[in-house]
């Protein structure tokens, strides 16, 4: 049986989970929580894997995940909203998705990162908002082993977490531009930016890691379930790493996580 997770509807307007809702005219979304959490993220990844099995049939198009939801695009002239909803509901009821295992073949990435300085100018502000000194913030963020919760926004771009409760900081109202490789923070998560983009998250670290490498055999190195540590390096070391980087790895290493 699927566990129901009664929660407040803040953030989604829904009152209990999992919930199936329309998104646009030709999409449907199965949401496992409106809060960031291990179980709902595992549920979304496992449910998505099940959806992948039926993608391409009977008007069912592409699928994806977000932090706690699985998405399916469909052809509403070929498959009615009611029929798809019934199908998704059957799948939701078929097992305990919150108890699903993590995907296999996961990797641990260690990525050199410069915190603060002119390269990541909002570290001090973020530390302050979290009630920490800058040194404490670097120590916490620089040792946190975070998981790729989903890939989204831009090609190969990870949402990473969860970070501790002190890092549950709201987004900023004003958007600012950050460069590729920027490590930004909000809502108990990091995002590692693929490309220069506007964001309302705080720019706390800078890496030379490229999340999207067109032309390489593996253009998108990260997969949901992978784990990452952003290890502090000095500004001078970072500049050296970036100057000699030719592959986009930015000095990162990876190893398989034992199952």
């Amino acid at each position: 049986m699927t566990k129901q997770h009664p929660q407040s509807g803040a953030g989604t307007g829904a009152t209990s989970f999992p919930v199936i809702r329309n998104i646009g005219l030709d999409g449907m979304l199965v949401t496992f929580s409106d809060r960031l959490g291990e179980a709902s993220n595992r549920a979304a990844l496992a449910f998505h894997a099940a959806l992948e099995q039926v993608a391409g049939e009977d008007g069912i198009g592409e699928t994806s995940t977000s932090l706690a939801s699985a998405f399916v695009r469909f052809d509403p002239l070929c498959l009615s909203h009611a029929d798809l909803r019934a199908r998704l509901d059957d799948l939701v009821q078929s097992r305990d998705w919150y108890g699903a295992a993590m995907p296999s073949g996961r990797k641990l990435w260690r990525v050199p990162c410069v915190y603060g300085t002119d390269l990541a100018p909002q570290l001090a502000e973020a530390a302050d908002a979290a009630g920490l000194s800058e040194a404490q913030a670097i120590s916490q963020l620089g040792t946190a082993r975070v998981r790729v919760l989903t890939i989204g926004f831009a090609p190969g771009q990870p949402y990473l977490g969860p970070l501790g409760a002190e890092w549950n900081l709201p987004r900023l109202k004003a958007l600012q531009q950050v460069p590729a490789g920027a490590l930004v923070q909000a809502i108990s998560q990091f995002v590692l930016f693929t490309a220069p983009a506007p964001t309302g998250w705080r720019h706390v670290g800078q890496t030379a890691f490229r999340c999207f490498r067109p032309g390489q055999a593996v253009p998108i190195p990260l997969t949901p379930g992978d784990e990452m540590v952003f290890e502090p390096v000095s500004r001078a070391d970072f500049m050296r790493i970036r100057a000699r980087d030719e592959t986009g790895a930015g000095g990162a290493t990876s190893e398989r996580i034992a199952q």
Partner: protein
Amino acid sequence: MSGLIVHRIGPVCSLQDMGRPGLLKQGLSRGGAADRLALAEGAALLGQAIGQITGPLAGLAALEMAGLGGEFEATGGLRFALSGAPMPATIDGTPVAWNASHALLPGQRLNIGAARAGVYGYLHLGGGIDGVEFLGSRAAHLLAGIGGTVQVGDHLEQGSDRGGVTGLGLKVADRFAGGTVRVVPSVQTGLFAPDVLRRFQDTGFTRGPRANRMGVEMRSGGDGFTATGQLDILSEVIVPGDIQMTGDGLPFVLLPECQTTGGYPRIATVIPCDLPLVAQAPAGAAIRFEFVALEQALAAHQQYETTLAGLRKSCRPLIRDVADIGDLLSYQLVSGAISAHGDRYWDKDDST
């Protein structure tokens, strides 16, 4: 292989097709033509098959021209069509009709000017433009850094053209000056208070100055449109057509090259058949949003698909003014479409 040499080009012209579905889970939005209807209209004028998402059309790229076209020299004889935002076009100085197919002889120059209405004009070749294919598409995805804008000196080679008539024209829906856009509720609509939703629907917006293939800003004189707890919302899946509020409550309508997830709340989603109207609204154009029921949206979608399927049958030989025929008869066999100005081919209710 025949094709076009680019002698002059607007700042944001790129190859586009139906995009790359299937990579959403890796963070890459489908992309493709900002005005997918215009892509289909050009294909119809050249007698090309319309693959909806994959299929033959996936191999055929067209040149999407934002606001301003360019000057192109034919390296061999070829057929071409013009669609989308109407732009003045000439072959060796002689005006030719928009929303029509024509022929170019080797060495002839096609000149395309600035949009008279709308934003995105399209230049299609009989064999499609054979750009570099990457992950199943030739479309540039500017946000993701896939492909780029077309530059002076580039060669636009065409694929093999099975041939066909030229001198066909197509009457198209006028979607180049803003208007009323139909929307359906989406997963975050409920986060907006009823009075905010009402005010959103009652507000006359104008398209703001910030617009690209990712999204289009909407402006209004009044307050922003904010949702409860909107700075703490978990990032969620985004689909093209979503109307996203930035931190200060300014709506952006997201287009095919949009981000795949995001945290700023979406008040509603523009239905797919009305999205070309948003993409084509020039800066300053008036836009209104109207919530419609799912059934109504589906009926409109069905009608749109029927229109797409019937585009080829709707193509008609271009009609000339009798007065023009004397001096143009010699041209007719070559291109089938010449006029002193682009609007002369149609009846009085010319759609361009």
